[in-house]
């Protein structure tokens, strides 16, 4: 376990997930139909994430990079947190403790170019990051990152939530 974590603690600057340029057209912020689509329970839409619609001209651009390398650009409002944003956009991010900084299921890897702009994690968050799987130098908890204008253009990688071996894992072992 520890060896695995150490092996992941390489500098993210060299990671391909952050190196490619996003050329795609921005897809606008989720609609209620999309929120509904996320839940497999047809009768009860998953209304996690009380996200706000950004005011015209005040949109903050965030690009999520899924564990498969897919880039998902979204426009979000100041004050919303990344867990709520990810869930409102049907991204594969769990918030087992409901965004109360009591678990590590919303672990994200932050674009190294933006990591220093974020406020430092507090002790509570650090306690949970201790337990995050595949921790990196720029790991954070999504529920603790509250969007600000300065973060416009930030890229956020979603780590694999599960540890099933992929073919590529064998190269690293």
């Amino acid at each position, binding site marked *: 376990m*520890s060896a695995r*974590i*150490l092996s992941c603690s390489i500098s993210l600057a060299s990671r391909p997930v952050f190196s490619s340029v996003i050329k*795609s*057209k921005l*897809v606008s912020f989720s609609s209620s139909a*999309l929120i*509904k*689509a*996320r*839940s*497999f*329970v*047809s*009768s*009860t839409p*998953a209304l996690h994430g009380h996200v706000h619609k950004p005011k015209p001209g005040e949109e903050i651009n965030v690009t999520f990079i899924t564990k498969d390398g*897919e*880039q*998902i650009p979204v426009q979000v409002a100041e004050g919303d947190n990344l867990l709520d944003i990810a869930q409102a956009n*049907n991204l594969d991010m*769990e918030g*087992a*403790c*409901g965004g*109360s*900084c*009591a*678990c*590590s*299921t919303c672990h994200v890897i932050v674009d190294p170019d933006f990591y220093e702009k974020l406020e430092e994690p507090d*002790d*509570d968050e*650090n*306690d*949970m*990051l*201790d*337990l*995050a*799987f595949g*921790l990196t130098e720029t790991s954070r908890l999504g529920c603790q990152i509250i969007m600000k204008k300065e973060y416009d253009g930030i890229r956020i990688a979603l780590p694999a*939530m*599960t*540890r*099933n*071996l992929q073919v590529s894992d064998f190269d690293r072992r």
Partner: protein
Amino acid sequence: MTAELGRRIVQPILSSTRCFKRVYSDGIKGSNLKIAVVGSGPAGFYTAYRAMTLLPGCKVDLYESFPIPFGLARFGVAPDHPEVKNCQEKFEEVARSPNFRFVGNVKVGEDVSLNALTENYNSLVFAYGASIDRELGIPGENLDGVYSAKDFVGWYNGFPQCFNLNPLLSDSENAVIIGQGNVALDVARILLTPVDDLRKTDISEHALEQLSRSRVKNVKIVGRRGLLQSAFTNKEVRELFSLKNCSFVPLEDKYIRDYRKDLSSLKRQSKRLVDLIDKYTKPDSMPLPKKWSLEYLKSPLEFLPSNKNSSRVGSTIFEENILTEDKITGSFRALGSGSTVTMDSDIALRSIGYKSTPLTGFSDIGVQFNDKRGILVNEAGRVCGGSELKPIPGFYTAGWLKNGPTGVIAFTMGDSFDTAENLVQDYNLGILDLSPKLGFDGIKNAIKSRVVSWEDWEKIDKFEKANGAKLGKPREKFISTEQMLNVLG
């Protein structure tokens, strides 16, 4: 990109319509699959959730031996950690799916046979956890005042078999806890927290009443290996540091000084632990009414009776250990040094881990249980059996039964997703028996107990919340199966 994103998002909507009919003859993907999950704790629910997400047509019936769901999220998580129980919101969302059924108050192996389950489902997932605690196996373990931390946790969390533990707190000053996992720290924190701070939690009333008369003021938490082998997480130890009216007895320098020299070589968690201990060590501060300490490199040899009462524990003898590193595996072992130390202990709690037990009928269905480790033999959640001990398609396991009793809920979540993904992979590969099965309908008449449905649980839940509201608490748990069933009429 836009089109691709659109497809990604639209897929879940389409999957519930006829669009997939050409690909899957039964309509929705997974609709020819009926899964029984045994155990409704986090492992059972998270496995069900992942399987139902990946195969929107599959049906999951979740069997639970108690009339109430959630396993250790209800009975294990400490009452002063309500935020950890928020995972239940996700489980409730899962339970509202029309493809999900809760089958409560049914003990698999007793009220219904394992053979009946295998006949009526395409796949079984065992996620019933670890229900017995490990014993030390040393003299004096049966003295009054020696408890298992599992029972103590069950006592304050309203576990049905534990409400009459009546721990001897009112005439005890010194408590010794053997083991240093998060359960040990939970027990220490409950013993040391001012009782009024617990009144607004869902801690059971009988425990509150007895804790209010507790005279415990000195808690030692003892581990057999060294500081960096401590099994607790930093969150839990920091909570102890932050307790009101309670001081941390400075850690003996010999346990920490070597690590300070080379902090940068330690892994993150260990480095933070050393920093935390130094930050919270205040040797010159005013003594507070209660104190706690971390003790290392000591293995218990014997519990001795007290001078006043020969049936009651009074002290614990420990052998001091030397830490040795296995250079090949990097693991650390404690070797006895021969010298001993005695600690006053008016009560002693052993907290050295849990074990699963096999279900009646495992041999009938050909799966292998490892008695020594207390787990179901498995490869990444695929249960093994047969003479070659190979994975048997259709049988899976998750949680503590799969891995042994470690890991916080976040770990169990990811790990249960692994199990579910392997089940789905086997489904996709076509190695599951997908012949039509009746599921619950095929066995409901054979079940010997009164089945508790999700709607029944919601009724019990409402009663517990109402009983809690009268006391200014989020919930007052029923402490027996009878009480739970009584409200259902």
